[in-house]
């Protein structure tokens, strides 16, 4: 290694090589302590780049040094000579951001981090970009390898020497870009040489990163394409085909199956994504700024809620239910693992005690019978006209009888006429059909009314609801008691599947991004990741074939990569069940148990409440049923009096 000198002419000896990238290598600098490293370029640095580095060192302030591995000092080949590299802060104990947002990575690198942590990280990433922008700089090439996150959710930016820098009015451009993180308006550029990037371009990349962080590593432009032909990621971006957008259907896109969507976010944040990923965003300053994101995410931070069932679940409090529970039930995907819940069975819950409390709550009993007995019912008197007609009819009948007797005695010849007249007199009677039908209708209505009142009485004032609740609690109790058995059975199964789970864990260590697979470049790996395929364990023929743009050739490459690894797998029967698998199982059962326990614990309260309600209904509904009974008895009597 040649000797290098800083701008003051001090000789800077390099230590061990720590890593090598495309442009240069990073070395330790023991004389400057553990926190400073040197980046040395492989090739001679252009005059322009040398000026950029010098100006960056001059323009670096405390804010920039805090959020980024900013060039602190240039390194020259000789005193005052060619710049070969620079000193910067070492980003220790940080991981690239995709190790946090990829669910499989997260379980291995950040096992104890929940969604609240992700929201924090998203906020801090926004804040870091805000700081860059407030200095007039632009990152230009925002991508997941540029952001590093620490265990306290602080985000640091690296590769600062590629940023677009403005110092004293002089612009130094960013000449690189990652296609699947490049905004639509810059898609299709074969080179970024001479292209002036804007904050609005950066804001696209920021929104992409935030989407990945908040929504489990999904790329917003990677979805299921319903149109004809391939829809590679870059094309999808160029055509604003935001797969999770409000109008995604009109663009022929739907989110990948079982993905978490912006519906779990506050409407405000979903709107920000909408603006960032659709056509209006490409207009001048159209996309949400880093500052807007900080504000929105700060507001989300204050609205987070912990799931009642699972401590590892944090979510936006505006939702009616925990989205992670729903996701786990629907897809079996565990995005967050709770380290606290791995000890199942420890709880203050006492079933025997609780059950005693439940059984001591007395049933309100059957609803008392409410009849009309004992009521003093007077039938409604008949109208005067009917009474008179009925009296007249009596006279007519007597007259008819008289007429026949008289006729038989005096003029038997005319008997036939007398019979006709008598018949007319006898049967002409009194016409009461109108009154009768009115009373009949009233009776029918009263009967109908009484029977519905009775039905309501039995339902609301009876013990049905109480008994139903009791039955529900009983079945919960049975379920809870059966849970231990079920857990034992599942563990048994785990024992039997020990080979499969060992194999799965073996394959899960092979991350696609760390391996060369023919035909599967970085962009395709992003697409795969957004369909939940991060490691060899996630690969199956059907899963890959269902992704747009993956034909049998590419699917074959991936499947064969997996199967090739699988051939290397050696089962170790002595290893037993992996503790992590038991932990997941325990967690699942602990969650179920907590859920049932929660419902049981609410039991006594609910039962008392139902009992109270029933008793209350009895007093409140009593007048109603009384009135109905009385009305019915009255109508019945009214009808009876018609004869």
């Amino acid at each position: 290694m040649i000797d290098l000198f800083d701008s003051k002419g001090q000789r800077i000896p390099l230590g061990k090589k720590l890593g090598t990238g495309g442009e240069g290598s990073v070395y330790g600098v023991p004389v400057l302590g553990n926190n400073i490293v040197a980046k040395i370029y492989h090739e001679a640095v252009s005059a322009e780049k040398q000026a950029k580095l010098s100006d960056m060192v001059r323009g670096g302030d405390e804010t920039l040094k805090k959020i980024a591995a900013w060039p602190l000092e240039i390194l020259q080949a000789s005193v005052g000579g060619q710049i070969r590299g620079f000193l910067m802060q070492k980003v220790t104990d940080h991981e690239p951001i995709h190790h946090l947002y990829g669910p499989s990575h997260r379980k291995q690198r950040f096992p104890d981090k929940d969604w609240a942590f992700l929201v924090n990280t998203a906020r801090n990433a926004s804040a870091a970009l805000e700081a860059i922008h407030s200095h007039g700089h632009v990152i230009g090439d925002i991508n997941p390898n540029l952001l590093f996150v620490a265990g306290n959710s602080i985000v640091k930016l690296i590769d600062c020497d590629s940023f677009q820098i403005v110092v004293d009015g002089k612009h130094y451009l960013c000449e690189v870009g990652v296609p699947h993180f490049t905004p639509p308006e810059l898609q299709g550029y074969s080179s970024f040489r001479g292209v002036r990037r804007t904050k609005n371009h950066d804001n696209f990349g920021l929104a992409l990163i935030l989407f990945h962080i908040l929504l489990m590593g999904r790329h917003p432009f990677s979805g299921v394409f319903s149109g004809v032909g391939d829809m590679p990621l870059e094309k999808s971006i160029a055509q604003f085909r935001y797969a999770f957008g409000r109008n995604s259907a009109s663009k022929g896109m739907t989110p990948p199956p079982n993905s978490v969507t912006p519906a779990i976010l506050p409407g405000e944040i979903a709107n920000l994504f909408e603006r960032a990923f659709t056509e209006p965003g490409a207009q001048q300053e159209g996309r949400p700024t880093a500052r807007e994101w900080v504000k929105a995410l700060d507001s989300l931070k204050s609205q987070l809620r912990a799931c009642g069932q699972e401590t590892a679940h944090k979510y936006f409090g505006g939702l009616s239910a925990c989205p992670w529970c729903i996701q786990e039930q629907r897809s079996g995907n565990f995005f967050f693992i709770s380290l606290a819940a791995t000890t199942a069975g420890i709880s203050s819950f006492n079933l025997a005690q609780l059950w005693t409390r439940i059984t001591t709550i007395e049933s309100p009993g059957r609803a008392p019978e409410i009849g009309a007995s004992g009521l003093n019912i007077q039938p409604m008197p008949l109208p005067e006209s009917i009474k008179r007609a009925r009296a007249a009819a009596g006279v007519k009948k007597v007259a008819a009888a008289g007429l026949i007797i008289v006729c038989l005695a005096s003029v038997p010849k005319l008997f036939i006429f007398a019979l006709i007249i008598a018949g007319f007199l006898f049967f002409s009677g009194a016409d009461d059909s109108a009154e009768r039908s009115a009373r009949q209708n009233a009776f029918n209505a009263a009967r109908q009314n009484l029977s519905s009142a009775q039905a309501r009485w039995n339902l609301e004032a009876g013990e049905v609801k109480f008994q139903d609740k009791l039955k529900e609690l009983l079945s919960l109790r049975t379920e809870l008691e059966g849970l231990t058995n079920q857990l034992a059975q599942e563990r048994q199964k785990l024992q039997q599947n020990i080979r499969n789970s060992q194999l799965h864990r073996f394959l899960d260590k092979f991350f696609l991004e760390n391996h060369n697979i023919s035909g599967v470049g970085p962009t395709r790996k992003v697409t795969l990741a957004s369909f939940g395929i991060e490691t060899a364990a996630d690969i199956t023929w059907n899963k890959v074939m269902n992704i747009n743009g993956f034909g049998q050739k590419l699917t074959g490459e991936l499947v064969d990569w997996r199967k090739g690894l699988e051939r290397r797998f050696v089962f170790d029967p002595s290893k037993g069940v992996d503790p992590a698998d038991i932990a997941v199982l325990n967690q699942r059962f602990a969650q179920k148990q907590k859920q049932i326990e929660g419902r049981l614990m609410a039991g006594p309260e609910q039962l008392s409440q139902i009992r109270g309600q029933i008793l209350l209904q009895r007093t409140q509904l009593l007048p109603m049923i009384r009135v109905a009974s009385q009305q019915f008895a009255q109508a019945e009597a009214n009808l009876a009096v018609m004869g």
Partner: protein
Amino acid sequence: MWKVIRASAVGSSHTESNIPCQDDCYADVISTADGIDYLVCLVSDGAGSAKEGGRGANLACLTAKQSIEAALLNPKPIDETVVEGWIVDVRRAIFKSADENSLAARDYACTFLGAVLSPCASIFFQIGDGAIVASSGYVQGVVFWPDSGPYANMTNFITEEDALLNLHVSVTSRRINEVALFSDGVQRLALSFEQRIPHNPFFEPMLNVLRNQKSAECEALDQQLAHFLNSPQINERTDDDKTLILATRRA
């Protein structure tokens, strides 16, 4: 000096329904620059149920032959991983063709088995049924006993998702002097399923002829072998396509 004969014959069930032979094979000696002769034998049986089984078998033999040739010319020693690579190459070729013709990989379903024999080492590999019988001249055996039984109609194909898992590979430093590779159609005649050994009366007469043949006259024997595979005495025992490769370097 290897003497080889090979033949494929269409099965009687295929003759009746006018389906061409779905088997394919390759058998030849490849010589490298350092003067070493390698006998390469490949047999592939296209699935009768697959639309393009015959094309699959053809692609398999063609692609593998090229891959093996390249590997033999490469100084890197051939181990199991290299053999897996040949299978992956075949799959690539099939998947590519399937993509280009809007067909499914399973339309090309075929079994695949092969042997590469050098003066002092041997490689055998196999996916699906059919069998390889190898003999040092004194000891004779079936390299991989067929996964399926003599009548079971189930087998593994090189086009399946699990092909690499179903792949049997054997790399030995043993010198093999006689080898026979055959497809499923011949399997019932050539193997004794009760004793799980090769059925010697099937091989011995043919090998005897071959051992005593001059190398230059072997080509004529291919014709005779084809006739034999098409003969009534064979056809009354099997109605499937039949492929057989026989090779000897015993004088």
